[in-house]
């Protein structure tokens, strides 16, 4: 019996179909993974199911009954709940208040807060959630906040739960916890849909998979009939290489950059504490850590965006401590962690963005300060070709490219202009598999050519796959730094959670 049957769903945005005759059927009581690259139409499809969008055509049947879902309220009434990637929680309210918001238990015309606490505690206990209903949501970690969102669904007595990229923000341990919760829910008869593009996780949790590509259903298969390679091929539409050809480390790896005793204070809190790092040419140094443990501050120090810190930064033999962003760009190429915020200007054309940060180099401007348009455009044309940026041309605005192509443009810009040190922060965030593969190979090529690469990433797979050495940031300190082979994914996760003693790591 199907819990959800979506048949022939078509949805167009500005004439281009995001979903084109999509079929998506989920059996009751299973965990179903909806796979696809960015822009494949997964989220659109789920937003239709949750009533946020209206399909142009097609039918939806819930528990064998044809229905119309025209709003999230209607979806909730049908027993469908959605946990969004960005949580919809009010930080200043308690767990219980957040959960009952909009459907509060009442005493007369007043909100019955005690009853809310009771009710939520009851549900939490039933599903073995360790959560205090009276805690303020603002004090919770990301993993627990997600649990609150799931509790919200259970409070609405939903039978179908949609989770949009639920593991994107979690550590490996938190992912394990989440999966345990999901299996419990399945045992209780709930139907779970996970939107994801992470293959490993899909393999470990899903019963069935459906793959979308370019807005169309490619296939629906039981998990037993696929493996990771096969899934990747289905998603991308061609064979994808998972291994990376890395030359062995060269014996001579000169020190390119040295940070000594860097401390950054922000609003009275130390967000980087006495961090020292040696960065060598010809190797990739991975910086692992749960987001918000000082990565952003480290990036700001390395790029000169923050010049208020204690300690010294030395490049080669030159002391460049507290240099401004413009000067640091001469030393460190920077692939920003948030490309929309720091990486490019949305309404600039590709050629304008191609030189952003390097635009004052004599190749690009005359002595009088006029842009050498033709030279810039020639360089851009070459770069677009070389770095495989799929675009209508150099005059297209970068904002209208896909995320992967925007990122390839930024990577291309940095690689074209770098001077031996490159900082790659979350270089493949929100980028599709094909582009990930490409960006990884470019970073490795850079290393093989003798450049120093600093890779800051929340994606453990990426860190493990690319790095020669890994340092772990926890609460602003480097808690360990070892050769990448010396870590397992488990031990790395443990370090990220602050377990610094070896026995804790092994436990």
């Amino acid at each position: 019996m199907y819990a959800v049957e979506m048949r022939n769903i078509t949805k167009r945005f500005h004439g281009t179909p995001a979903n084109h005759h999509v079929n998506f059927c989920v059996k009751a009581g299973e965990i179903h993974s909806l796979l696809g690259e960015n822009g494949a139409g997964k989220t659109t499809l789920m937003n239709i199911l949750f009533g946020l969008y209206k399909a142009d055509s097609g039918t939806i049947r819930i528990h064998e009954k044809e229905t119309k879902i025209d709003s999230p309220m209607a979806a909730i009434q049908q027993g469908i709940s959605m946990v969004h990637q960005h949580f919809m929680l009010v930080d200043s309210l308690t767990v219980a208040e957040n959960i009952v918001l909009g459907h509060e238990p009442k005493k007369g015309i007043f909100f019955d807060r005690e009853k809310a606490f009771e009710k939520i505690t009851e549900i939490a206990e039933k599903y073995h959630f360790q959560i205090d209903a009276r805690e303020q949501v603002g004090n919770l970690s990301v993993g627990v906040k997600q649990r609150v969102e799931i509790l919200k669904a259970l409070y609405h007595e939903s039978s179908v739960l949609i989770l949009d990229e639920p593991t994107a923000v979690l550590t490996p341990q938190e992912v394990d916890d989440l999966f345990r919760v999901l299996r419990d829910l399945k045992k209780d008869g709930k139907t779970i849909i996970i939107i994801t593009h992470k293959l490993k996780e899909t393999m470990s949790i899903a019963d069935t998979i459906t793959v979308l590509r370019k807005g169309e259903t490619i296939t629906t298969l039981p998990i037993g009939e696929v493996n990771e390679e096969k899934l990747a091929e289905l998603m991308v539409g061609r064979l994808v290489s998972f291994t990376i050809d890395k030359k062995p480390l060269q014996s001579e790896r000169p020190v390119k950059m040295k940070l000594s005793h860097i401390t950054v204070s922000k609003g009275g809190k130390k967000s980087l504490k006495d961090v020292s790092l040696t960065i060598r040419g010809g190797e990739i140094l991975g910086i692992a850590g749960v987001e918000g443990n000082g990565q952003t501050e480290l990036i700001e120090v390395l790029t000169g965006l923050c010049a208020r810190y204690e300690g010294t930064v030395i490049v080669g033999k030159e002391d460049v401590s507290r240099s401004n962003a413009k000067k640091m760009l001469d030393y460190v190429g920077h692939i920003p962690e948030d490309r929309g915020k720091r990486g490019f200007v949305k309404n600039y054309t590709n050629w304008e963005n191609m030189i952003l940060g390097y635009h004052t180099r004599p190749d690009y401007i005359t002595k009088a300060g006029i842009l050498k348009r033709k030279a810039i455009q020639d360089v851009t044309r070459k770069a677009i070709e070389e770095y495989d940026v799929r675009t209508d041309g150099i005059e297209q605005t970068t904002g209208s490219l896909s995320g992967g192509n925007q990122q390839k443009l930024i990577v291309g810009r940095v690689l074209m202009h770098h001077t031996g040190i490159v900082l790659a922060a979350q270089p493949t965030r929100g980028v599709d598999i094909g582009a990930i593969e490409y960006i990884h190979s470019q970073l490795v090529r850079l290393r093989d050519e003798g450049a120093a690469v600093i890779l800051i990433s929340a994606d453990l797979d990426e860190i493990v796959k690319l790095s020669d050495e890994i340092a772990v940031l926890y609460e602003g300190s480097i808690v360990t730094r070892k050769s990448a082979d010396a870590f397992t994914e488990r031990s790395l996760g443990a370090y990220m959670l602050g377990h610094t003693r070896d026995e804790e790591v092994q436990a």
Partner: protein
Amino acid sequence: MKALKKTKEWLGKSEILLSLIALLLSLLVSSVVIIISGYSPFEAYGAMLKGAFGSNYYLAQTIGTAIPLIFSGLAMAIAMKVGIFNIGIEGQMIIGALPAALLGTYVTGLPAWLHLPLCILVGAIAGGLWAMIVAVLKNRLRINEVILTIMMNYVATYIVDYLVNYPFRAEGKIIRTEEIQPTAAMTTLVPHTRLYSGIFLALAAAGILWYVLKKTCFGYELRAVGSNPDAAETAGVNRKKYMLRAMFISGALAGIGGAGEVLGFYGYYISNMISGYGFDGIAIATMGRGNPFGTVLAALLFGVLRNGATGMNRSTSIPGEFIQVLQALVILFVSTPGIIRVVQKSWKRKRFAQRKEEVA
């Protein structure tokens, strides 16, 4: 055919089309208002056009009115480019106008080639520095520029009013300063009209601004700061410096606009002479979509509207206030591109449907 296609492409790209649709919509809606009020829109618009273009004299008046509007529009445009909403243009025009008048009056014995440019320069610097105060406060103390510029308008108005009323008041009933020296005056192009040589200055300013924004490293960095300050910062651009520079230029343009009215039209500073030019600049720059040439066109349109209103009052019984309704609607439609996009979309959809039928 090819040219037509190119024009079409250009229209779509430059967003000028949006402004044209906005204008059409406002003409349509105000016709309805005029009809409801018991007048004929044809008569009204006819009188308007006659008032704006009916003779060489009217035409010169229309273009002349556009001179200060071009300056205030450009001032707004460059502030918008760097991401500052400069509502203080009115005040900056006033602050630019008075020193130009005083310098023009009390400095004597200079040759015209020196005296006039000096007066304009002083107007520009006064307006520029006045506007820069806003950028300094915004940079240092993060004060919201909208509130700040509004308040600065009052400060400017009252300081200048005081100076004109007391220390520098000329004899007579009218509150104004003494007449400027002939060496400080701009040439009137058509006798007894507002059209003075400042129009060339205004057009040159638009051209220079366009060139600087589009072609120079300065413009490139300035636009980057305006569209994405974080990305600009990451690219090593000092955004605070650009706020200061852009505000100075904005205020300087406004100051020249104010000084021009003194040196080219009135011949003295007179109380209330900058009657809303600064505020119209906001609408004009928005209508011109921040493009300097678009801004010139929009300023000319506002010149037409202002003089059209006078024409309506003169030759018909229809109150000229209808033009204000029209003007308000233009601003409304221009500043809500959403409405226009909906209109555009429904047209496109219809055309799409038609084409589909034709194919089928």
